[in-house]
């Protein structure tokens, strides 16, 4: 057995964005773990200053091609908070419907093309597709169902443009929702099949006592709003976020590291939502979870692929429910008059909570912006996982261990493009 070894992946595959992993072992123990995010920083927060409050949804949607709806939703919520805008219940329902499309699209991509190859021993989705074309086709068609819902409500598939502070630019008629309804019925069946299939995969025996953080809402599986709760006693309004969470610069990463004050790492995303809000899933989704071998709690991050399948199923179910109850609002949006103040928004992006905070002046110009994406929040949990996961597996062959470490990172579906953040340049000179 080598006493000293390094597990290194210089360019992480099958993740959004550019990152690397570094694990150092000395004397049979893990001494250092680094998830390195080196995609160039993107100065979005600085860029937002001086722009109109109404521009925030469209500007921030550009941060991510996979979860633009999440950015729009957190942004409009924050702006509607500061301007005290009442949101029409049908506008709220439509936003939730749009968000369901993004969950379906994002989760399908991750499950089928990025994560499943890990469990089935394939180097990539291309290799998986050669042996199992029907499985990959199902994933692509599921993803398309999500994309088509986003296109219908968001105006276009990538970087939707239809959401505005106060409502939508245009709302669909009931008739316009018919074709996507048929597609969603197929998608719901496919999601059931997905849950069944992912439940049969083999998972490494690995569990951690995470602090899960997610939004929670009394009446629904929280997506667009709720209180921030955890399994270790956190229960706060979104506007209290900054009093409980801190961010810090880490020299080796372009993304800020988040932690809970006095407590440290926490986990956001499907696993957190599932554990905190299981009882608010639809009966069909709960049943599918049980059939796939999950209880109401799940502490094995490798099983997040099953949880994502359950969430796709829920999103299809919920989308169909929302469509069935949809009555077009009288007006697509209400007029918004800006007023000076600070507003807060937090919604459940596919990868976990996405927090926005904006301060605007009386004329509606943004004077300060803060955006905390889910992957930035999960960095500490990812590193803690690598540490705990590698320790008992130090004697595995290098290739196997490296593979499993990459898989452990992909459990989080990290979106490095989102996480990349302004990093102050520091030059140390003696």
């Amino acid at each position: 057995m080598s006493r000293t070894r390094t597990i290194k992946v210089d360019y992480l595959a099958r993740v959004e964005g550019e990152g690397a992993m570094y694990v150092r072992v000395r004397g049979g123990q893990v001494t250092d773990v680094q998830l390195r995010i080196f995609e160039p920083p993107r100065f979005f927060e600085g860029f937002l200053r001086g722009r109109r409050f109404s521009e925030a949804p469209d500007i921030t949607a550009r941060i991510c091609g996979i979860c633009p709806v999440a950015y729009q939703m957190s942004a409009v919520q924050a702006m509607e908070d500061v301007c005290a805008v009442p949101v029409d219940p049908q506008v709220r329902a439509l936003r939730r419907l749009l968000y369901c499309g993004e969950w379906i699209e994002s989760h399908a991509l991750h499950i089928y093309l990025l994560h499943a190859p890990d469990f089935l021993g394939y180097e990539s989705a291309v290799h998986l597709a050669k042996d199992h074309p029907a499985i990959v086709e199902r994933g692509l068609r599921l993803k398309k169902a999500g994309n088509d819902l986003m296109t219908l409500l968001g105006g276009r598939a990538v970087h939707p443009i239809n959401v505005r502070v106060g409502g939508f630019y245009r709302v669909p008629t009931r008739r316009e929702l018919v074709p996507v309804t048929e597609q969603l019925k197929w998608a719901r069946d496919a999601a059931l099949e997905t849950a069944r299939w992912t439940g049969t995969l083999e998972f490494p025996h690995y569990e951690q006592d995470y602090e899960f953080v997610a939004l929670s809402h009394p009446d629904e599986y929280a997506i667009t709003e709720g209180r921030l709760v955890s399994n270790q006693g956190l229960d706060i309004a979104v506007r209290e976020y900054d009093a409980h969470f801190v961010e810090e610069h880490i020299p080796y990463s372009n993304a800020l590291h988040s932690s809970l004050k006095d407590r440290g790492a926490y986990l956001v995303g499907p696993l957190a939502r599932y554990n905190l809000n299981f009882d608010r899933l639809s009966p069909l989704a709960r049943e599918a979870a049980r059939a796939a071998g999950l209880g109401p709690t799940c502490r094995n991050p490798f099983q997040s692929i099953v949880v994502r399948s359950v969430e796709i199923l829920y999103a299809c179910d919920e989308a169909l429910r929302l469509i069935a109850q949809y009555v077009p609002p009288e007006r697509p949006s209400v007029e918004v008059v800006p007023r000076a103040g600070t507003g807060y928004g937090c919604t459940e992006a596919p990868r976990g909570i996405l927090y926005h905070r904006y301060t605007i002046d009386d004329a509606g110009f943004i004077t300060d912006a803060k955006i905390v994406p889910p992957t930035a929040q999960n960095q500490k949990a990812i590193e803690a996982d690598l540490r705990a996961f590698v320790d008992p597996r130090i004697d595995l062959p290098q290739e196997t261990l490296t593979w499993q470490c990459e898989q452990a990172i992909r459990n989080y579906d990290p979106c490095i493009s989102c996480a990349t953040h302004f990093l102050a340049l520091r030059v140390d000179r003696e």
Partner: protein
Amino acid sequence: MSTPVDADRLDRPRVLVIGVGNPYRRDDAAGRETVRRLRDRAPHVIATLEHDGEGTSLMEAWQGADLVIVVDAVSSGVAPGTVRRFDVRSEPLPAAILRDSTHAVGVPDAVELARALGRLPPRLIVYGIEGRAFDAGEALSPEVERAVDEVISRILGDVQVEGGPPADA
């Protein structure tokens, strides 16, 4: 995403030119700039699409077309402005030469995934334009500017030879 292939010309081979790239990363926008100029030069003749390069939606976009030409920026270490052409039906796209995609599923993945699933268009040509600068900004390097014009001429040639004569050209 709707496929902007002209449905009125079903008797003709359906040609689609897709420019891939990030419009705010200088030479990475070479593909997009190619289709913009192509649109100006030959409006209504060739269907074009600007695309961010996410692989699965790329596969959706080219569905139904007979000849697809994808133009993307390349960062392989050769002289900026170098143009490379790949006939993808007969050879795999060398993944290493295309500029690292920030997408989990990029252009080479889309090509190989489509090949594995029998979803490649009947003809698929990929042009790679070697870039010089990929930092934040919008202007192309002079060598890339020239390469864009070269690629446009070659695309018009491809369309003549492989896609049949373009309408009204």
